[in-house]
């Protein structure tokens, strides 16, 4: 990751100073409900979703999210329909200044043909009474702006529109908690050293060896219980025998409404052992920093902005954990950036947890998934490390 230069930092400061004063509006009018059916950074068949999908069944007028904008241009292809790009401006009185950011609006069947490329407009619609392909507007914000007003011409620095005031979803119906479906433990012998992984299924959880016809890698899949936080006795357990490195992968999703496909959640946090806060109210105790967190605010860009992560944080490489718009898998550990041949397994400040470094016993983890509305779902899982040929059941029960 590159270190930001002084000029970059200056631009960054300008950006945030402008953006803090800038008003942003919901791009669809009329505003029926402010929610999305596709979130920023969902993994979609080879790329991250670089915007949000706003449901739009019927006919709407589309406005730029800033009142004042420069109309950069439009393109059209058979899949996306019209794609309109604007650069954001800020305005005070009659003075207008360009911001180093812009936005794109995709899937419109019609556009406003009174707009001329390169002209600055105030309040003009980008499309009037338009329908949308697949009944949604894809809206994305980009910084630097999609054109080279400052010489910074990389349009692929997308960031999450939800971090702007007035662009957060405001859906009173979204009181659904995110859903935690499964925890997968990767039992590939090439990954786990000399250990084996088994369920310790004394409470009868759905815990199965999961194979796919197209892959030889066995995954052990644990169905996460609907309730677990604060109640250790009903938590599922995983048995790890021997010295190993284990990959844990989570399948989770956000339910916005019952009428639309699921979204990716906003953040996923993993707490390990004594980092786990007790009780629902302490999930965000600053003293209890998560071991690992994926928070979908920005894609990594050359300026090294915060909350960057890698594509591999969303696990997608092979079946059965192929992700698409309705299925979301996440690594619960940073992926192997160094490419040292190991899948850099779980939970250790030095990038992975090797059970070689753990004593026999039980180690709890807590998974916390949050959506954009702050709805939270947690699950606790206990894994048990055994290095001898016998199992210390009692220690587990007495933990």
């Amino acid at each position: 990751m590159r270190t930001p230069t002084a000029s970059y930092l200056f631009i960054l400061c300008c950006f945030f100073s402008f953006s803090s004063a800038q008003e942003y509006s919901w791009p669809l009018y009329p505003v029926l409900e402010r929610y999305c059916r596709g979130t920023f950074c969902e993994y979609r068949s080879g790329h991250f979703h670089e915007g949000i999908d706003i449901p739009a069944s019927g006919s709407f007028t589309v406005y730029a999210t800033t009142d004042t904008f420069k109309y950069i241009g439009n393109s059209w292809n058979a899949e996306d329909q019209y794609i309109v790009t604007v650069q954001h401006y800020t305005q005070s009185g009659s003075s207008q200044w360009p911001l180093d950011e812009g936005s794109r609006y995709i899937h419109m069947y019609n556009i406003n043909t009174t707009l001329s490329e390169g002209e600055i407009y105030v309040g003009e619609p980008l499309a009037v009474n338009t329908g949308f392909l697949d009944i949604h507007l894809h809206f994305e914000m980009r910084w630097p702006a999609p054109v080279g007003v400052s010489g910074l011409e990389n349009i692929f620095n997308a960031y999450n529109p939800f971090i702007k005031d007035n662009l957060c979803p405001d859906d009173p119906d979204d009181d659904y908690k995110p859903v935690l479906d499964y925890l997968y433990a990767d039992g590939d012998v090439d990954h786990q050293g000399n250990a084996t992984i088994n369920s310790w299924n004394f409470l009868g959880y759905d815990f199965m060896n999961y194979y796919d016809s197209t892959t030889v890698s066995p995954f052990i899949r644990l169905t996460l219980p609907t309730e677990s936080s604060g109640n250790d006795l009903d938590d599922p357990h995983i048995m790890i025998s021997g010295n190993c490195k284990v990959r844990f992968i989570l399948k989770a999703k956000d339910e916005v409404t019952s009428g639309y496909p699921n979204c990716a959640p906003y953040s996923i946090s993993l707490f390990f052992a004594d980092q786990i806060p007790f009780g629902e109210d302490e999930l965000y105790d600053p003293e209890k920093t998560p071991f690992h967190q994926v928070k979908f605010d920005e894609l990594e860009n050359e300026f090294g902005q915060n909350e960057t992560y890698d594509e591999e944080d969303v696990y997608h490489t092979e079946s059965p954990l192929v992700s698409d718009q309705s299925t979301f898998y996440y690594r619960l550990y940073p992926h192997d950036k160094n490419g040292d041949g190991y899948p850099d397994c779980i939970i250790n400040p030095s990038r992975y947890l090797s059970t070689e470094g753990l004593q026999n016993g039980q180690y709890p983890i807590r998974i916390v998934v949050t959506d954009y509305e702050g709805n939270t779902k947690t699950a606790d899982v206990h894994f048990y490390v055994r290095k001898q040929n016998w199992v210390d059941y009692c220690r587990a029960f007495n933990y």
Partner: protein
Amino acid sequence: MRRIIFAMFTFIFCLSWAEVKVEKVLETTSIKEYNQWVKQNKVKCPKLEPILIQSSHEIRGVLRQYTIRYYNQNGEKLKEETLQDSLLSIYVPFTNDRLILRKKLQGDANEVTVKNAEGQVLFKRDDIRTHLAYTGIGVYVEGLSAECPADENTVLRIFNENGQEIGTLRGFGFINLLNICAPNDRRYCVFEGGNPYHGIPVIMLNRTGKELWRYEIDRGVISLFISKTGLHIGILHSNKGKILVFDENGNLVQEYTPFGENWYWILSAFSDDGQWLVTGFHSKVKFYNNKTGALVWEDTVTLKEKADTVKYVHSMKNGDFIIVLCNSHNIYVFDTTGKLLLVHNFRLGKHLIPRRIHGTVTEFEVLTQNWYSDVIGEYLIINKYSNGVSGARTQGDMKIIYRISEP
């Protein structure tokens, strides 16, 4: 009866100035009427093309309903198909001689079916990654969604008329179908590559799908235009206010910055043989000789006096008439020396635009801008269309046709 009315109308509207005669020869919303007019005039003007396919869509919730109508050269409707599917999209290329249907399948795959102007299936593939664009020269190029960032390793497959893979292209995500051109004889096509990772590629392909040359330009809106003979290719680079003129082999032969180096959306057109270039921006018009790069004439007064702004420019009769169409619906006709020959308003009417400022929406009346223009032979064809659907996708709902000639 129609012919009588038509004759009377023509008689009423026939502007004849000393050096130019402008007749409105047709105004119609009827495909039958248009195709019959084309048939009557095709001998004199072979490049006129009838409308053979027209598709419209209607969205009902998640369901999309497409109505496709097939016509013959006489404008008689041959058949009508109605397709209803939430996963279907339909596209009629600018050649208007085929229909491309794309249906999303499970997973990443898409099924694409190409039909001819009679509705017969030309080929079908079920392994297209997102969609298929027709280049107008018997070659199709696969495309990805604009939501999918392309990089230098992105590979798009090229297919022939039978749907067989014949090559690949790299470094961009799709063809921007608003910027695709082919000369009259369709020996090549040139297009803008959409969603590129680096600079925007302008690429020329021949009829075998071979990439002949590529020119990568800095980001900033571009527009492409070519001479009818295909000997000259123009790129407007609005970010720098530049017009780049290439020969067919991809050699840069002229570079103009007619209105200064700034962000300008410039309109330009070549004469048929490419020797002359007319360009307009705001209320200015300039005329260049492409052989020498010399400015032949400029007019910065005429449009300004009427507070007009340029929407389209054309060259007619190989540069003898310069036609400038404005947002005000005015048509200006200049000669090769820059002398104004005629001004006429074609009156397309007004519509309401809802502006939103600080969350408050107020409607304003503006002159309708849902139109584009073509020059074919001695005819200026103004296509009015509904709902902001531009010329890349429609033949227009209404056509106004003028014949511009010497008296």
